[in-house]
């Protein structure tokens, strides 16, 4: 009995992973707007209902794919960068490094479509899984920076993650609105975007 349950749990995990893999492959071609759960089911070789058993909606599926991508790409990079001494300068570099990964995100082209970008904002900030993935990446780093006295002591670190994500979202989806190039952007990041959270 116990054994049967384990087997079933395992195959569920596999199906879930297969669905996400198939959908991630389809996304760049279909774009978020046009991808349907039907397409995903067909590509995975399973029934549509089975897809719905794992993901309640297309938004939830897309959010899970984005979260997985964040963990895979940002996690290792941020951990590596965070190994260095915590300084204000370093925090700006971390922000820029994460922004760079975000810009090369495979889903970014469809996101830049003006018809989709506004919906993406609601998707990213409305479904907890994406912010949870970003918290996993950022909270240990922020903890370290707080201990080093780089951050203001009274801040809620989850709010900081939300703030950073919000700023990066607009920078990725509307790249040239605030600054013309990265050098100019870095000034805005250090003097304005992060200056509120840094210890004077």
């Amino acid at each position: 009995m116990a054994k049967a349950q384990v087997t079933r749990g395992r195959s569920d995990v596999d199906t879930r992973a297969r669905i996400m893999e198939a959908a991630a492959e389809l996304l760049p071609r279909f774009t978020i707007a046009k991808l349907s759960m039907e397409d995903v089911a067909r590509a995975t070789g399973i029934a549509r209902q089975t897809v719905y058993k794992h993901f309640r909606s297309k938004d939830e599926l897309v959010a899970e794919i984005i979260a997985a991508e964040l963990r895979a790409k940002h996690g290792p990079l941020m951990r590596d960068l965070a190994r260095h001494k915590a300084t204000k300068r370093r925090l700006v570099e971390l922000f820029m490094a994460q922004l760079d990964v975000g810009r090369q995100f495979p889903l970014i082209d469809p996101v830049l479509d003006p018809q989709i970008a506004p919906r993406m904002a609601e998707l990213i900030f409305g479904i907890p899984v994406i912010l949870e993935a970003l918290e996993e990446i950022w909270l240990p780093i922020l903890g370290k920076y707080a201990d080093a006295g780089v951050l203001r002591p009274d801040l809620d670190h989850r709010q900081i993650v939300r703030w950073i994500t919000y700023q990066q979202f607009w920078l990725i989806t509307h790249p040239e609105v605030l600054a013309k190039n990265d050098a100019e952007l870095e000034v805005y990041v250090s003097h304005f975007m992060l200056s509120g959270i840094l210890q004077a």
Partner: protein
Amino acid sequence: MSSSTATRERILEVAPEVLRRFTLAKFGMEDVARGAGIARQTVYKHFSSRDELLIAMYVREMLENQAPRMVPVVDRPPSPDNLLDVFMTELELARHYPWFDESSEQSMAPRLAEMIFRSETLMQTREAIWFPILERYEAAGVLRPDLDFAATVRWLTYQKFWLLFHPDVLCPDDEERRLYVRRFIIAGLVTTS
């Protein structure tokens, strides 16, 4: 007033009503011409493009409607909390303009962002409104001493834009949004808070 200036004024007077009626997505020079009772070519003689007219309308909106209403808050003694109130008051006043109100479609944001942040006229107006405020706050020792005012105005305008276009993305609650502005935007500009 020359007759040409009078025509320009007339266009700018009727245009906001036309914008309200047609919404930003559908607003056209033809509709403005009809509203003002003049030929379409005459509108083009004063404003070379729809974007130029839209910018001129918003410049007027800021100078004639928003800035005067900000005065009571702007005149308060400089402090971080009063700076927050200046920012929030301006945000609230802009919220009812047809670029940002419920008639506006969110798919217009990228185009509008490009138009606003590329316009020198618009940024100069923002500076005309904000530089005196920043100077007064700086003289009172409230602002960080190393602030670049032009960059500060661009930054505040940028933050305001997203809060107007997507009011609920950062946080859906008014009180909490105010807290974010206080902690992350204003705190970054002031010496101590």
